[in-house]
């Protein structure tokens, strides 16, 4: 048994080392920038590689800006956008994955192919396609204009940004959900129906608890990149009214004289996501333990 365990550990070692190294080193570099200093003349970040000399004064300023200053709105907006986009993604993605796993039959392969097809087109290209369609002279705007709807979709509209996020990330939700639902033991649902449960009750009491791990995994998978997303907003809105945290990080690092603030926001966002991720790990291990029992 020990030999087998050692073999599995050895097989996992290269991957684990790769992930750890390429996560730990860049993250340490970001921390060194965040807790370092700024060149007084050129306003470039000067990383402080020695943790003993890290300065936390700028961190305190950014933290107070997030809790009670101008960045509070950006933080709140990011959370609202991501939560709204996730709710919409689940509303679209769950029925799609459910149908694929349960009712697609012979058409499953075709439907899978069509769902994966957007991946063949680059994310940027897909967003640019929407920019084209939603512009005032675009096909979509002209089409809805026939019905008397004249709305500037690209003029800092939160709906456009949220729909853009949903459009971009929903395929990443469908695939893990489908993988989970496909492996479910549907005989349990049939047993529940045989015992008198309505389809809604069977779904709530049997399907949802069994699919909980997949739902959590899919949620985490789309929530993490959504929190750091900046290009969806950049392409579909480019307005300060819809700025998300990713846009602030991009602004501080690329267009301002305070790159240190961008690095601090990265650390704050990572901490927030780490909390979400630890919740996910705890809930999945709990589900695993329940299954073993």
């Amino acid at each position, binding site marked *: 048994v020990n030999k087998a365990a050692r073999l599995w550990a050895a097989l996992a070692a290269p991957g684990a080392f790769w992930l750890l190294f390429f996560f730990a080193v860049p993250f340490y570099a970001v921390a060194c920038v965040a807790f370092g200093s700024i060149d007084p003349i050129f306003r470039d970040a000067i990383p402080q590689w020695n943790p003993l000399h890290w300065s936390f004064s700028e961190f305190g300023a950014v933290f107070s800006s997030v809790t009670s200053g101008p960045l509070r709105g950006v933080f709140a907006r990011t959370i609202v956008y991501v939560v709204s986009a996730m709710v919409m993604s689940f509303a679209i993605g769950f029925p799609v994955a459910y149908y694929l796993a349960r009712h697609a039959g012979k058409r499953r392969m075709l439907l899978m192919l069509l769902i994966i097809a957007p991946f063949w087109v680059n994310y940027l290209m*897909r967003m640019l*396609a929407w920019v*084209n*369609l939603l512009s005032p002279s675009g096909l979509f705007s002209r089409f809805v204009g026939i019905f008397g709807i004249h709305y500037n979709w690209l003029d800092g509209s939160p709906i456009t940004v949220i729909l853009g996020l949903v459009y971009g990330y929903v395929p990443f939700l469908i695939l893990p959900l489908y993988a989970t639902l496909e492996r479910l033991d549907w005989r349990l649902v049939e047993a529940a129906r045989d015992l008198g449960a*309505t389809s809604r009750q069977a779904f709530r009491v049997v399907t949802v608890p069994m699919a909980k791990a997949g739902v959590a995994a899919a949620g985490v998978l789309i929530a993490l990149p959504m929190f750091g997303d900046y290009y969806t907003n950049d392409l579909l809105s480019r307005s300060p009214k819809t700025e998300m945290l990713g846009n602030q990080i991009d602004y501080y690092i690329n267009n301002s004289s305070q790159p240190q603030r961008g690095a601090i926001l990265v650390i704050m966002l990572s901490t927030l996501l780490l909390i979400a991720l630890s919740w996910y790990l705890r809930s999945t291990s709990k589900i695993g333990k329940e299954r073993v029992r």
Partner: protein
Amino acid sequence: MTSVSTRRVKALPIIIWGYIIWSLVPVLIAVIYSCGKAFRSAGGLATNMLRCFTTLQCVTQL
């Protein structure tokens, strides 16, 4: 009970086909529309198709 579940199964294909249309059609329209613009702006279909894809006019015209 049967009518409810039948209704639900009928609703699911509508959702899935709606989603597929929503995810694919905009991209197809945009690509065709943009490449069409590139084709119209100069003669010679084969040459312009090649130019459209090699110089990424499809992207830049968006």
